[in-house]
């Protein structure tokens, strides 16, 4: 098994509590399914949408956000899969895709040379 990172970008929460709850339930079901099949190495962490950006040799510090809302990474998960194709397939069940969001699938580099 190889390791991959899912980066979640964008995704509307919706204006209605009922929709938000349905979204929550979909995420729970998706993670549960992935975990049962042994694909979740680390469920990961949510990230605040704001922060600081530190730049260059002058180390200038500016306030985030750094991109448009739809491009901001909202969290990540560490996934186990056979190869990149399987990892990409697994990401297709992510509920964020239903609400205008994206999953970026990136292989974790291997240490062996």
């Amino acid at each position, binding site marked *: 098994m190889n390791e991959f990172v899912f980066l979640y970008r964008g995704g509307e929460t919706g204006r209605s509590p*009922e929709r938000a709850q349905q979204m*929550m339930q979909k*995420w729970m079901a998706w993670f549960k399914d992935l975990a049962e099949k042994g694909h979740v190495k680390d469920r990961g962490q949510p990230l605040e949408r704001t922060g600081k950006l530190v730049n260059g040799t002058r180390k200038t510090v500016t306030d985030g956000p750094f991109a448009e809302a739809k491009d901001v990474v909202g969290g990540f998960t560490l996934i186990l899969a056979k190869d990149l194709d399987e990892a990409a397939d697994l990401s297709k069940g992510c509920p964020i895709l239903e609400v205008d969001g994206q999953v970026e699938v990136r292989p974790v580099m291997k240490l062996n040379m």
Partner: protein
Amino acid sequence: MELSEHLFRHEAGRMVATLTRIFGVHNLALAEDVVQDAFCRALEIWKFRGVPENPSAWLMTTAKNRALDVVRRERTARTFAPELTRQLESEWTLAHTVEEQFGAAAIKDDELRMMFSCCSPRLSEEGQVALILHILCGFSVDEIAGAFVSSHAAIEKRITRSKKVLADSKKLFDVSGCEDFSRRLPAVQRALYLLFNEGYHGASPEAAVRSELCHESIRLTSLLLQNPLGAKPSTYALAALMSLNAARLPARVVAGNLTALADQDRSQFDQRLAEQGQRLLEEAASGPELTDYHLEAAIAWAHTSAQRSEDTDWATIVSLYDKLMAIRPSPIVALNRAIAVAQREGPQRGLEEIRAIQDVKRLETYPFFHAALGEFEIRRGHLQDARHHFDAALSLARNPMERNFFEQRIRSCK
């Protein structure tokens, strides 16, 4: 940890009510933003870390902390609830005051306060109902439009206008004043009654939506019953009529289709609701007061308690309609009475009763008036006439569900 059904919607109502109590009714929009924010945070964090042991408490704490931030940040620029201004201004009392407002008993009062505020005489009845659904039950504009089979634009306009009236009212309704409470109570009961009817008789073909509206009105009425000033026999009667009718809902609308009373599968009745309704009806009889809610509840009980359709005690139902006509006469009540008379004494008598209805003209645009005439004619064996009546009903049908129902009746005339 699983989320209980509609948890977010119910918590949204509680949070908005409490935040509005702290921020003041003129800052209703700010309260709604804070709630929205709390849900966004919940969603982002729970996704990765799982749902906490007590999701309601988590949401409330998040809303409380956000409220403290907002007050600290904006207390020089904004005014908050006038009766709390002094406590919110000083750092010595701020945290304690906000904490107190988020206590369980205080939140219940806040929901009641909001319910009474939504039933201001400055709002139309439909405005009151929409506002209750939106603010206290957490329905979005789209969800209300779906439930009422109305356009998004129409509902949005109604809610925006009603919210403005509410925000301009300067102060939330004071639920501790005995006299004011009693004076506003009938309007609140009426709004909850209309909300229930929207679920029971309304246009939505979706069984889930209908039962949600019914259950929301039952939930809010029980909130009213938990308050000593709200627990009047009339409120018990209202709760009884809701429970007894809601008990029959699973048999009334099956797979998006209306089922006539005589054809309903009584084994589908919700026994728990029926028993709850019976208990409430007994509570309602504790005083001399006899309201239209008492009579409607008693009629619902007569229907719900009949084992089979042919066991229905029509004589009692007719006499209850007689009393209802005395308290709250209307052409629709008269029509229902005529239908009950026809059940007891035959279709000929039903037709006579209908002819005797004052302002029967006002029923001309009501599809079920024509449908009632159609049923009488079927029973008299005049299928041709029955068909004409059902055709008239069909042309007046207000939604696909009614249309299907009348088409099915037309087919049975052949």
